[in-house]
């Protein structure tokens, strides 16, 4: 199998989550923006999901439909291709980012366009499409307000749904004054939106080629679906002569009927609305209405590797709603940039290591306290904690096999192996308990442990630790047993020790 599905590309590993998180945690403006945004959206989601007595049934149907599609992905992609072609569209297959970018660039160049308009698409971010087009002298204009903000600021997205969540209104006002042709502007959100509207309308009316992603593509009918709020999606998929949609292969769904499930799950999970403002569904090309040329680019770029992994495969259920980001206590505090990848948050922590290879994103599976809130809100029931644990195993495996020598001196690995041996034997375990009772003495001050050596110092840097009691539970139990054997049971006394030890 590994011969047919290529292994991950060799690349520079991502910066560690720990390092990026530390920086993000210190950014008070970011913390404030994230707190407000995540709590607002959580409340909205809870409200509209609470209205639905059949929410759990919808989730189960969503999960099952994804399972059906993924287990028969080749069949459904072929069906999709045929349906799109029958409807006058063209289908291209791209094995990786470079291939996808080449296909798109070729189409744009054939139409002699120097500028294209874009609808927000994580998939195009993933393949760095804008940069690829730029090297051919083609500029890609982002038309989502947040993406426009990000593009003008020269930054990268920090949330899959609200990419500029890390910016507040006055930062945006300053940015627009600097980059758009406006003279004065307050930081009133309505005015800011209007400035963006005017700037982009000119583009919408004159650009011949548009690029979008796709939320869903229906295999049965060849219908492609884009879900949005602002109307720029409608502009891009309706006005230009040529439309190119780049889509991950996992986005295909079996039949038209299946939209009844996903169009209920997605809006309530993402923006916390009963329905998002605009959803566009088109099938191929229609004379006199919309683009006269339609290209669908089917992208692999590592997805077949995820598909091949029977535990990891469920990651491809994702419909990019961002409910997991919004509920995650880690994401809420560190934001998206700390994950150093196109896909942040809980889904990013499992998708990115699988797409890039665990060795290149080895800190991401650990960027979680395993609280499980993400699994509870995932509309397609991706068991994110399960996949995180599985990927942690793959990271450890990798370190043990590819870095065997280095791993032998890795303190964590050494400690874990030692503890495993200790736990495997009662005698060793009880000895270790005794050692802890003695060994704590240098670290104990004023009845509490307030320093610890090495990596354990990270605990005591910010917390105290209750001291190791002189008598372990089993010591107490044995003493009690001995006492009872020597006395009448009815007269046994509880231990003389009261609550001096134990929790602080």
């Amino acid at each position, binding site marked *: 199998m590994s011969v047919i599905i290529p292994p991950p590309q060799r690349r520079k590993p991502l910066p560690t989550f720990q390092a990026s998180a530390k920086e993000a945690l210190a950014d008070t403006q970011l913390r404030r923006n994230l707190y407000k945004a995540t709590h607002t959206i959580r409340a909205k989601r809870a409200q509209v999901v609470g209205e639905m007595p059949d929410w759990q049934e919808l989730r189960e149907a969503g999960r099952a439909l994804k399972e059906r599609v993924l287990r028969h992905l080749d069949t459904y992609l072929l069906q999709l291709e045929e349906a799109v072609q029958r409807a006058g569209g063209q289908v291209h297959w791209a094995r990786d980012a470079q291939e996808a970018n080449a296909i798109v660039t070729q189409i744009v160049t054939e139409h002699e366009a120097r500028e294209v308009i874009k609808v927000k698409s994580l998939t195009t971010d993933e393949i760095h499409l804008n940069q690829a087009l730029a090297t051919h002298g083609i500029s890609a204009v982002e038309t989502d307000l947040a993406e426009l903000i990000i593009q003008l600021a020269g930054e990268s997205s920090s949330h899959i749904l609200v990419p500029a969540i890390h910016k507040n209104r006055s930062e945006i006002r300053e940015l627009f004054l600097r980059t758009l042709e406006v003279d004065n502007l307050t930081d009133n959100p309505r005015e800011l939106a209007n400035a963006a509207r005017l700037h982009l309308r000119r583009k919408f009316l004159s650009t011949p080629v548009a690029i979008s992603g796709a939320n869903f593509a229906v295999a049965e009918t060849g219908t492609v679906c884009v879900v949005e709020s602002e109307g720029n999606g409608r502009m891009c998929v309706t006005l230009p002569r040529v439309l190119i949609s780049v889509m991950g292969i996992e986005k295909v769904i079996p039949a038209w009927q299946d939209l009844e499930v996903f169009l209920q799950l997605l809006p309530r999970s993402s923006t916390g609305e009963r329905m998002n403002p605009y959803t566009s569904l088109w099938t191929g090309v229609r004379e006199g209405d919309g683009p006269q040329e339609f290209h669908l680019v089917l992208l692999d770029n590592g997805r077949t590797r995820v598909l091949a992994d029977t535990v990891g495969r469920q990651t491809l259920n994702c419909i990019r709603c961002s409910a997991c980001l919004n509920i995650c206590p880690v994401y809420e505090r560190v934001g998206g940039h700390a994950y150093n990848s196109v896909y942040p948050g809980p889904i990013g922590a499992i998708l990115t290591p699988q797409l890039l290879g665990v060795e290149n994103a080895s800190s991401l599976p650990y960027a979680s306290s395993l*609280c499980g*809130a993400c699994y509870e809100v995932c509309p397609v029931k991706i068991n994110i904690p399960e996949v995180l644990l599985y990927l942690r195993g793959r990271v450890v495996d990798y370190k043990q096999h590819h870095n065997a020598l280095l791993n032998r001196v890795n303190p*964590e690995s050494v400690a874990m192996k030692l503890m495993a041996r200790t736990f495997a034997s009662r005698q060793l375990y009880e000895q270790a308990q005794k050692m802890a009772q003695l060994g704590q003495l240098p670290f104990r001050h004023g009845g509490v442990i307030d320093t610890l050596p090495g990596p354990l110092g990270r605990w005591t840097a910010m*917390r105290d630790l209750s001291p190791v009691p002189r008598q372990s539970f089993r010591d107490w139990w044995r003493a009690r047993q001995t006492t009872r054997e020597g006395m009448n049971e009815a007269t046994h006394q509880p231990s003389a020790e009261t609550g001096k030890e134990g*929790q602080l």
Partner: protein
Amino acid sequence: MLIGATQRWPFKKKEKVAMNVSLFITCFNDTLFPQAGRATVELLERLGQTVDFPEEQTCCGQMHYNTGYQREALPLIRRFVQIFRGAEIVVAPSASCVGMVRDAYPRAAAEAGDEKLAAEVAALVPRVYELTEFLVQRLGLEDVGAYFPHRVTYHPTCHSLRVLHVGDAPLRLLRAVRGIDLVELPAAEECCGFGGTFALKNADTSMAMLSDKLRNILDTRAEVCAASDNSCLMHIGGALHRQRAGVRTLHIAEILASTEGRSFV
């Protein structure tokens, strides 16, 4: 309002249920928080249960399994299953360790391709309970005869909420405690940031999460913060102590075991 806080179990009539309970103390309770174990034993015996302690037990393997050392965890899993194989009922004062047995053991057996182990795990899992589940679900009790005249707030740990789905069992037990001043914890279902080795590997993020949990606890003006997991309490209590906040942490067993004659504070 706790997620999943619904009346989950049909209430048994108040007939006395007497069982042979094998105590699964957990490695860190054994070593660091024996009080919780003592309280569990005293409480169960007061309620007419017969408690034994299989001394061969050490650790369920959760730390290894959750940190990615699943291979190293497997012998510990086998060992645990072996030790408790003959138990009538297994009770642990730890939602996370019971969660490990219920949730991860079947998976680990499947990953190892070991059908025999999988069968043994399947036979064991229905007999393993976290303490509050055992009291409310198996013994059908809410009032365990406790007396604890202190202001208490309860933190529902992630394992108890989302893996075991204990619902509001712990709160019902606490409400029935005589003399208690039970106050609701704001944003109770948010993670405290412990997450096992997460507290060390991602210490900064862990602390950031803890800082909000602490704020919510302090806002209740409670004297005691209780939970079903000493692991989370170690993290919360460690910071409360460092800050000299004047709030202590107690395992719920210690509250439920307290009577007029015997307090765990």
